[in-house]
């Protein structure tokens, strides 16, 4: 970042003016991105007293991990609540991801390979689902969950996340299947494999990067989801993190370091997951929209 690129790729030619503008902009945007995140971290290692000083300390004179210990210790009341929310989030996100992959894989494969009547209609309705605002679904789903007795259960969240993750998962996976040559399957079938065997033994292993990308995407979506979690689950012991933070905030209204520490802990899993698997994630985002 800080190293000024010394004409490296362009050789002896004059630098593109667009590149100069872009580099300057990158610098500004990096500050814009990083400084708030740094402030989250700095605040989280302050004491409550130090956080409410004016003017604010840029770096705490006495940094402390006190808030983190409290949040992550099963002995404290706040810790118990917080760890409960964390466990709920982990469970809901995992279940959503696993079910999503199981349902999306065959559907995406069918959309990629078969030409059955109604295929286009179905596929566009799958795409259109991306356009629907969550709020449109909130009321009827709430009524439906009440009718099925699922209000205040994790099942209501898993079921909902599953469906609003599905269209995107199908779309992403279809892109991956489109890129796997159909000749491979044909060869397998000539060698005596059934269509299903060809799918399971040839296509599935080849599409594992696609499945990983889709799974990460579903996991992050489920982990971060807020509006359904807010509406469907009120029982304190069943809240997920995104709503749990809200409770935490309103009960300890002035504890900003605690809230920042909790926000940081909530962000860590998705950021780690994302940084490790960035390549797949980026592919997941841009697949379909960009044709190379």
């Amino acid at each position, binding site marked *: *970042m800080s*190293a000024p690129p010394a004409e490296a790729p362009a050789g002896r030619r004059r630098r593109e003016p*667009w*590149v100069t*503008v*872009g580099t300057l*902009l*990158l610098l500004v*945007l990096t500050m*814009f*991105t*990083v400084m*708030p*995140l740094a*402030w*989250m971290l700095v605040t989280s290692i302050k004491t409550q007293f130090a*956080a*409410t000083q004016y*003017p604010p300390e840029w770096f705490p004179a006495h940094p402390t991990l006190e808030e983190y210990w409290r949040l992550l210790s099963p002995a404290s009341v706040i810790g118990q609540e917080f760890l409960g929310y964390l466990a709920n989030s982990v469970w809901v996100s995992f279940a959503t991801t696993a079910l999503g992959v*199981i*349902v999306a894989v*065959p559907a995406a*494969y*069918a959309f990629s390979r078969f*030409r*059955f*009547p109604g295929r286009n209609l*179905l596929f566009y*309705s*799958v*795409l*259109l*689902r*991306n356009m629907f*605002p*969550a*709020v*449109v679904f*909130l*009321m009827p*789903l709430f*009524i*439906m969950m009440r009718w099925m007795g699922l209000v205040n259960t994790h099942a209501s969240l898993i079921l*909902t996340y599953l469906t609003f993750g599905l*269209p995107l998962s199908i779309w992403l996976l279809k892109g991956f299947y489109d890129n796997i040559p159909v000749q491979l399957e044909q060869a397998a079938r000539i060698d005596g494999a059934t269509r299903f065997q060809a799918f399971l033994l040839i296509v599935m292993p080849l599409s594992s990067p696609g499945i990983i990308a889709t799974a990460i995407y579903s996991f992050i979506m489920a982990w*971060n989801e807020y509006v359904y979690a807010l509406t469907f689950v009120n029982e304190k012991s069943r809240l997920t993190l995104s709503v749990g933070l809200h409770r935490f*905030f309103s009960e300890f209204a002035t504890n*900003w370091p605690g*809230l*920042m520490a909790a*926000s940081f802990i909530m*962000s860590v899993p*998705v*950021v780690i997951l*994302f940084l490790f698997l*960035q390549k797949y994630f*980026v592919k997941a*985002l*841009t697949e379909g*929209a960009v044709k190379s």
Partner: protein
Amino acid sequence: MTGSAVSPSPARRLGLFARIYRHRADYLYVLPAIFVMLMVIAYPIYYTIYLSFFNTPPNLALEDKIFVGVDNYSRVLMSDSFHEATWNTLVWTFWSTFFAFVLGFGAAIGLNRVFPGRGLLRGVLLIPYVISAVAASYLWRWIFHSDFGVIGAITVATGLTDRPINFLDNTQYVMASLIVVNVWKEFPFAMIMMLAGLQTVPDQLLRAARVDGAGAWSRFWHITVPHVRSVMLVTVLLLLVTNLNSFTIPYIMTGGGPAGASEIWITHIYQIAFGRIRFGLASAYSVILFIVMMALGYFYVRALTHGDDKAPR
């Protein structure tokens, strides 16, 4: 149904039912997905439209609902709060999309060449996009805090203002403040889309144009832009849709306040539905929003499938 399925040349194409029968095994693969989607997508859409014609009791005893025709629609469309929310929604959606796209495209141009630390930088810039909107909203609420907020302290220290500004409790600044947060959260999305688009622009073409003496502006305008036009379109549409659907940032940061100054359609609908428990009214409101989204959806599908017609598969 059957009428439209009659094909002009029956010799070439089988009848609809014959074709369905022939492909019957194919449907098994999509059946689980279709089942889930019918239950959680088609039914809710139908039910929202249905409820929008009823007055629902506040205790949600839906068997007591009263048919009111299009009354809910006229009440929504006539209300002042709807007009204010509509204006806020336009401001929010337009400026969020504009800045997210421009900054994202700029960053993509900056990232679209090889330099040390490029992968790391891209990862760092994407962090706001992947973290939870809830965490981001609390963070920015703290940054904008009226007494201990860091931005207030900076404006005082640099002499811009005498006292810290209460950004979120000020009808004049609240929308702009929320848009800053939203752009912070979603410009990385535009960046990554446009970066993927820029990488499809053939290098030889740009070099050839330079040899022929085309200037930077002309190369950008005549080579880069035409190549990334469809990605641009998809990105802008997705940003528009996302911004029209935003809930978390305005809800957590201001809850629509002060005095409705940051109330947008979605938060307004949520408030009517789950604050005032007026499902019928909120359903009518949702249907209006829904129609707007469908119009955008039409362009989205067209933009996405446009390339399919040309590309041989």
